[in-house]
């Protein structure tokens, strides 16, 4: 937030050039919100008149956030300089900060004057840029989503950011228009206007359903936050990870100080020395280890609960009368995301392993206009619900798709046993690698002399305040490494079975359904009419086993959804049935040869 350059590249302008760019450098005041068209006399194609600008308050919001970060550090710097007896230097930080803030504010005011937007009957247009004038225009029929976000420092001023997504990837970042910031009222009006279209038939359908929601001026409520759902928030693999992360950060800081940090603390606090602590811990392992784990767990739980609270507070998912699906959530940053109903091509039932084991799930959208740079961001942006009970998530998914029989309930076909064999092969390789590694380590363990252990112990002592690892490793016999390898092997095979069981594909009259994953199991439903092509890939191993990856390409979501390791004939039949007539001309049914059909590749070298 402190840097303006990160999302407004047109402002990275050399300082020299700036003075000439301001048409009116003497005035220091904030311009009016709706100046007449005379600001752009040179633009020939511009119909003069109603081009609203950003809210003048946005300069204040930006200045406030910059000041909030910079003034305290300037004060600290001043105090420090006074303390170390450098009175002349101490005069510097505050004026410098002031000048910097003034400069940023000035630039922001220029930006404010430059940005103008308007929504006409069939286009949304935006002008921006101080030196390099930019004009962007998107047809309204291309608008897929409107995202209204208000971080806390912006919300105080009654403002919000509006991001308009088009779902077209022309160049980098050209698929979005972003207004920073307009008043909340303007934002709401834009949201309504941009997504309103001839969608009245949707409205009638929307009001007939409503099994779990009431119809109000906002439309049908599909889901609303149930505070109990926060109990699912810590159910991730990250819970331990965050605790470990905190500890790793502390250890890192201690190592940075060469081990002196902890020594200093323990001296001040009168704690016993490292070696005594280690002995104490070793003598009470049964007590210390559980306490340690509980500590990790608790810190992870607290962090994740806070994060979930910030993200999902005030969560509401509604379908408005015109079919638009609207998501509202957020405690400090309130977010309102609207997706045009027609562009919501399906849902993802998202079940990461830990959440799955406590029977929880969350729902994501498969929609055009929600894409981001990579799949991970796309998935974060598409979240339509917090972690909630699985049955509730399935019901929500069904409500979103508006089908009598929920596509998520379609029975899924299993994939050939050969798919399991592939996964076993991979697990075998992992196990072999583990055994080889264990052998190497056990050998090192055997040849290690006392002096080696001494070195390792010294290194550990400078890094970790309570050295335990090297000592316990030394105490364990060499075959201990193989025990670890066995555990790894068991896990690998367990994972292989799980990921095979996760595979599945099926068809609903309107949707195709795909499921895969062990670590994260995703059940994807995709409207059959949204499929815009097929991609079939086969590796040499898959050709030998008669398998293939059959992927439906689509404009929505991640762009491609794939049935992994499906039998070739099985997968093609499925794809052919899902989108009739697309694949049919390219299929052939060879003379019946019994079971061997899949194992013969179509094109052999």
């Amino acid at each position: 937030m402190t840097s303006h350059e990160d999302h407004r590249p047109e402002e990275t302008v050399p300082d020299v050039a700036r003075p000439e760019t301001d048409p009116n450098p003497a005035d220091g005041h904030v311009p009016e919100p709706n100046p007449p068209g005379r600001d752009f006399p040179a633009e020939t194609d511009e119909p003069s008149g109603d081009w609203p600008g950003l809210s003048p308050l946005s300069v204040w919001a930006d200045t406030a956030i910059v000041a909030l970060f910079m003034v305290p550090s300037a004060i600290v710097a001043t105090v420090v300089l006074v303390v170390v007896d450098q009175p002349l230097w101490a005069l510097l930080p505050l004026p410098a900060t002031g000048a910097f803030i003034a400069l940023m504010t000035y630039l922001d005011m220029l930006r404010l004057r430059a940005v103008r937007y308007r929504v006409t009957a069939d286009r949304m247009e935006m002008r921006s840029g101080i030196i390099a004038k930019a004009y962007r225009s998107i047809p309204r029929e291309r608008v897929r989503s409107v995202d209204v976000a208000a971080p806390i420092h912006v919300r105080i001023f009654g403002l919000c950011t509006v991001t308009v997504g088009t779902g077209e990837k022309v160049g980098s970042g050209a698929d979005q228009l972003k207004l920073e910031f307009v008043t909340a009222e303007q934002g709401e009006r834009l949201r309504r206007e941009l997504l309103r279209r001839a969608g009245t038939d949707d409205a009638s359908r929307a009001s007939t359903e409503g099994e779990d929601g009431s119809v109000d001026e906002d439309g049908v409520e599909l889901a609303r936050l149930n505070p109990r759902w926060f109990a699912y928030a810590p159910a991730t693999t990250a819970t331990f990870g965050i605790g470990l992360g905190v500890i790793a950060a502390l250890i890192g800081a201690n190592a940075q100080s060469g081990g002196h940090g902890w020594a200093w603390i323990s001296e001040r606090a009168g704690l016993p020395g490292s070696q005594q602590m280690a002995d104490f811990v070793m003598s009470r392992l049964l007590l210390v280890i559980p306490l340690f784990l509980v500590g990790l767990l608790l810190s992870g739980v607290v962090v994740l609960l806070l994060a979930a609270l910030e993200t999902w507070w005030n969560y509401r998912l509604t379908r408005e009368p015109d079919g638009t699906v609207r998501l509202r959530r957020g405690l400090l940053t309130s977010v309102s995301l609207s997706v045009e109903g027609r562009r919501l091509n399906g849902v993802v039932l998202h079940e990461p392993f830990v959440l799955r084991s406590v029977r929880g799930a969350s729902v994501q959208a498969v929609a055009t206009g929600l894409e981001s740079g990579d799949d991970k961001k796309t998935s974060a942006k598409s979240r339509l619900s917090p972690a909630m009970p699985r049955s509730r998530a399935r019901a929500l998914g069904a409500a979103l798709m508006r089908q009598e029989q929920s596509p998520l309930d379609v029975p899924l076909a299993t994939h050939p046993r050969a798919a399991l064999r592939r996964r076993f092969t991979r697990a075998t390789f992992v196990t072999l690698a583990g055994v080889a590694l264990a052998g190497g380590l056990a050998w090192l363990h055997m040849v290690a002399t006392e002096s080696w252990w001494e070195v390792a112990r010294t290194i550990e002592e400078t890094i970790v305040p309570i050295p335990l690892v090297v000592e316990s490793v030394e105490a364990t016999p060499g075959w201990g490494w193989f025990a670890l390898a066995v555990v790894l092997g068991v896990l690998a095979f367990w994972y292989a079975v799980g990921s095979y069981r996760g595979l599945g594909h099926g068809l609903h009259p309107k949707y195709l359904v795909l499921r895969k994953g062990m670590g994260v199991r995703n059940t994807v439903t995709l409207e059959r009419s949204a499929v815009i092509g097929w991609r079939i890939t086969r590796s040499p191993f898959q050709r030998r086993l008669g398998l293939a990856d059959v992927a439906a390409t689509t404009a929505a979501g991640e762009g491609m959804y794939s049935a992994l390791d499906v039998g070739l004939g099985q997968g093609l039949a499925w794809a052919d049935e899902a989108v009739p007539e697309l694949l049919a001309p390219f299929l052939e049914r060879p003379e019946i040869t019994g079971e061997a059909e899949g194992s013969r590749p179509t094109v052999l070298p």
Partner: protein
Amino acid sequence: MSNDALRLRPPNHRVDRRAVGWWSTQALSVTVGLTVIPVVPALIWEPVRFWFLVVAGIVGGVGLLITVVMPRWRYRVHRWEVTDTAVYTSSGWLWQEWRVAPMSRIQTVDTARGPLQRAFGLSSVTVTTASAAGPIEISGLDHTLATEVADQLTDNTEAVPGDAT
């Protein structure tokens, strides 16, 4: 796999025979480039000369093998077909890929030719859809044929209504 013995039939047309030469040249230049990297230290650094030459030998050998095998293999796999309703291609050699895109979903059609392709009188036709799965590419077509295919595709696409998403 109890059900159908369905298979994909290969698309109708092969790419131009000259594509074999083009792929061979590509593979050869990559091979030469990668082999030179370990040869340079071998020339200037006496003690490890043997090992670097061994590495260079392995890289060069594998590269030459690929240069000989890959283009011919590819030539057997790479095929394409344009019907009134769809574009259908197959490509790859070890890892093979079949792509189908309906006319109604095609957004843009381009032809492109790099310097090497031009030397062989070849062109690529790139067909883009709205999907993030990447464009469909028919590479190694005769230049005139590529232009014709692109023109035909453009005409066909314009004839089909829809906003391609």
